[in-house]
């Protein structure tokens, strides 16, 4: 009986996902255009790093708009954090990025998606490639990794993070802290449009040489997660394949309209 109990814990809930009201308990400005909202979801079943939620807003006249947002927080935390980039022509993101305040209720359903997920029991080297707010689901993975006790047991990991300017590097302080505490985690930044005078990172879009020199220390068979605007993801995935990575080792998550061209 006890083994059956252990087994059932692994079962994905088979009931259809239900919309439920989540309460905003905190907000945090990450960059001028990006804000994190912290949600208390009453019946949250827990999530895996890389999953997303669907979020629904209803106007007074009944009009509804629905979007998917990646979860930024680690599975180890009880609150659900979403990091939202404001799209100037967006229907939903300006409200979430500018208007929502503590105590507001927002309808969500989730967690959703079993494909673009990473779990720390995976022993293979980990490569994360982010463009702009594509860093969000990858941050959940890095936070999940950081929750692993024992630095020595971690496999090597890399984050290659592209943004237009240093102000748009979401989570930069936390990322630098994570890298300082984790000898096996390396973070490389590239700024594609504007760089501070003392900038020591890359100054161009992600290209073949950049992927090659950063992934080489991870050995032959890292598992690679790429998230960002569609053209950036397409380009990175094609470069990875041309460098000999197996298509099945490259997991991608593309954004739709993102306003992050030029990354």
């Amino acid at each position, binding site marked *: 009986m006890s083994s*059956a109990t252990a087994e059932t814990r692994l079962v994905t809930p088979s009931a259809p996902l239900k919309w439920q009201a989540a309460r905003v308990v905190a907000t945090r400005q990450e960059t001028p255009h990006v804000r994190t909202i912290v949600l208390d979801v009453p019946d949250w079943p827990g999530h895996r790093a890389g999953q997303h939620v*669907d979020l629904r807003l209803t106007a007074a006249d009944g009009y509804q708009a629905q979007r998917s947002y990646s979860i930024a927080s680690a599975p180890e935390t009880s609150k659900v954090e979403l990091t939202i980039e404001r799209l100037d022509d967006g229907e939903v993101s300006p409200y979430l990025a500018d208007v929502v305040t503590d105590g507001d209720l927002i309808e969500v359903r989730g967690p*959703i998606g*079993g*494909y673009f997920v990473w779990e720390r029991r995976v022993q293979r080297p980990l490569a994360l490639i982010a463009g702009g707010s594509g860093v969000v689901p990858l941050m959940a993975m890095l936070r999940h990794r950081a929750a692993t006790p024992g630095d020595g047991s971690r496999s090597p990991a890399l984050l290659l993070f592209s943004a237009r300017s240093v102000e748009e590097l979401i989570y930069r302080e936390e990322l630098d802290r994570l890298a300082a505490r984790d000898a096996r985690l390396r973070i490389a930044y590239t700024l594609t449009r504007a760089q501070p005078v003392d900038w020591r990172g890359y100054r161009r879009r992600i290209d073949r040489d950049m992927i090659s020199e950063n992934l080489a220390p991870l050995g032959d068979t890292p598992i690679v997660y790429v998230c960002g605007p569609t053209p950036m993801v397409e380009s990175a995935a094609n470069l990875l394949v041309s460098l000999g990575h197996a*298509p099945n080792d490259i997991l991608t*998550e593309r954004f739709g*309209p993102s306003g992050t061209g030029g990354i």
Partner: protein
Amino acid sequence: MRSVEDLVLDGNAAAGLLSQIFVPEMTTAQFTCAGCGAVHPLGAARLFEAAGLVLRCTDCSGVLLRVVSAPGRAFIDLSGMRRLEITLPPST
């Protein structure tokens, strides 16, 4: 103006809708494309959102699956998949 390319996502983004229709997790289900025979997880397929939702093959861009939703109903066309291998949760 948004270009068509802007609206292309991964099959992973269809997970919410698919979870309303199918009980098991579908983004990790392996499809076999009826057109080219490629085998990949549905989460790696290309998602196009138009009047309905269209998943296209990662390799040949052939249509794998169409879902059109209407109030209280959904119409599903799976004819672009020769096979779908679904991992079932352990029975309880």
